[in-house]
């Protein structure tokens, strides 16, 4: 081997190097972006009205006119999948935004204040985690009555716990760190220390968690809708669509297959984005280091 082995050989600049080193991050981010774009432009790109019932065209196989076929009520499956993208992403965004913000705030307070407040919040978390999350969400949906709104509220009430635990743990370590000590010595108020010094340091893991959480929420939402507890007809939602195709799997599997595929791609994209973001943020994994 040549002794002048080029350290700089692979030192390509900017984007090219980034894309090469974090292939997975770039690709999954691209797919996520496409899914978001589909959700945003849903009304523009749908080939048909997703709620237009056509009794003459029930459970048609995929054709030129209906690329994914039609459902038991003669509605265009592709259009309903596109509409369903919007339903899922908007709901997931609302849930993550509210439960994420709430969880982060409670985690900050819990970790920073300690004492009774901390105990109370963490015991509440323990109790919520005593149920498998979908079972708890079911109980909440029962009490509020089935519907997309209930599912959003239920999943919000269930999902904040993860953020609270994560942020609390981070705060507990950061609290001891020198820069926070210094900030305190300089006479900063607690609120200022929390938001100016601690919060920016917990953002990265929270973003990773949010991305993984969206995958989880999309799945939970579809599961609840599949069971009939979520989106109600005629709303287009992937889980509900799969449910409607149940009786036709023998004769018309496309009614079940295509929404499931959309669901899987979405879950896959968000999980991969979360995973590769974690690798990206974790310097230990990024630069394999010696000694």
């Amino acid at each position, binding site marked *: 081997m040549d002794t002048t082995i080029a350290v700089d050989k692979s030192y390509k600049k900017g984007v090219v190097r980034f894309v090469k080193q974090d292939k997975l991050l770039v690709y999954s981010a691209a797919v996520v972006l496409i899914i978001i774009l589909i959700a945003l432009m849903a009304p523009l790109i749908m080939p048909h009205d997703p709620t237009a019932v056509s009794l003459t065209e029930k459970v048609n196989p995929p054709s030129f006119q209906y690329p994914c076929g039609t459902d038991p009520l003669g509605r265009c499956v592709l259009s309903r999948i596109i509409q369903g993208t919007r339903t899922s992403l908007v709901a997931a965004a609302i849930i993550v935004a509210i439960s994420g913000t709430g969880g982060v705030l409670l985690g900050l307070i819990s970790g920073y204040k300690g004492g009774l407040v901390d105990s109370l919040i963490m015991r509440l978390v323990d109790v919520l985690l005593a149920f498998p999350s979908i079972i708890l969400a079911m109980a909440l949906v029962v009490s509020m009555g089935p519907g997309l709104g209930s599912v959003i509220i239920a999943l919000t009430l269930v999902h904040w716990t993860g953020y609270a635990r994560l942020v609390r743990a981070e705060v507990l370590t950061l609290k001891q760190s020198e820069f926070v000590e210094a900030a305190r010595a300089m006479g900063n108020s607690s609120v200022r220390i929390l938001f100016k010094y601690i919060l920016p340091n917990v953002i990265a893991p929270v973003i990773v968690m949010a991305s993984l959480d969206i995958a989880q929420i999309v799945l939970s939402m579809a599961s609840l809708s599949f069971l009939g507890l979520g989106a109600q007809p005629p709303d287009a939602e992937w889980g509900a669509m799969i449910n409607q195709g149940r009786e036709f799997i023998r004769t018309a599997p496309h009614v079940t297959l295509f929404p499931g595929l959309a669901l899987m791609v979405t879950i896959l994209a968000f999980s991969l984005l979360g995973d590769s973001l974690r690798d990206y943020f974790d310097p230990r994994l990024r630069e*394999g280091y010696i000694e």
Partner: protein
Amino acid sequence: MVTMQASSPLLSIRALSTYFQVKETVVKAVDEVSLDIYPQEVLALVGETGCGKSVLALSILRLLPKNSQSEGSIRYKGLEILEASEEELRKMRGKEIGMIPQSQATSLNPLLKVGWQVMEVLQLHKKVGKLEAQESVVNLFSRLQLPDPAKRMNYYPHQLSGGMRQRVLVSMGVACKPNLILVDEPTKGLDAVLRKEVVNLLGEQAAENSSSMMLITHDFSVAAVLADRIAVMYAGEIVEMGSSSGILAKPRHPYTQSLIDSLPGRGFKPIPGFSPSLSLLPPGCRFQPRCRVACPKCASLHPEITETGVNHYVRCLYADRS
């Protein structure tokens, strides 16, 4: 501890380079190192963290991760280690060449009793029964002044203090009476009193088994106590090598001088700057950016290692001047 430079070396390293591939870059952690270890000799390898001294030790045992590659030659008793088969290496490890790893806190398996962990190496190489192995371990423990050795055998690592764990690691490394012991930072994470005890124990063990020892340390004072010869490493290269007394009395390389001056008893002067990253080495002499006596020529010319006295080697353009 007599230096027997006349006999043939036990371990002979020639132009050894060890590379690591990290993503798409290749880093050279050990750069063309040549050195010999003679029977019953203690050689200290001194340098700052990250200079490649631990990598050198692991290269000898061929225990580096898969993303590494070594070139050159390491000969042990006529066996070319870099070309040895996996089975030859396995038989050599622990039996011929023992290792006492650094960081006592993490080098013992937390789920296994310490006695068992030492017995394992005995049963592997000495073909002794369980009882016999047990007896040997109790003996080893008492020789290493572990209090209540029979009882300590059944302890788990977390139940022992740092000093005791270090002794367990030492007993593991010397259990099979190897001809060569590689000792990596034996005093890491120990307080001053324990440090002295461990250093003394190491000296005793090597003398008792008439083993050679390669002592890896960043601490010149440890090297001064134990070593017959000292090799100073900087950024992957050996920059000075010679007899312990010679180097301590008259260090020739500016880096060696700085290291000695940084000792608490010798001025306590810290070396300015940081050791360079192995992937971004300065041009010319690698120590030149931190050197007190560097001149423009040092930044353009990479000095070769040259013999400046009897068995004294220095890698500096001005080895004679300083």
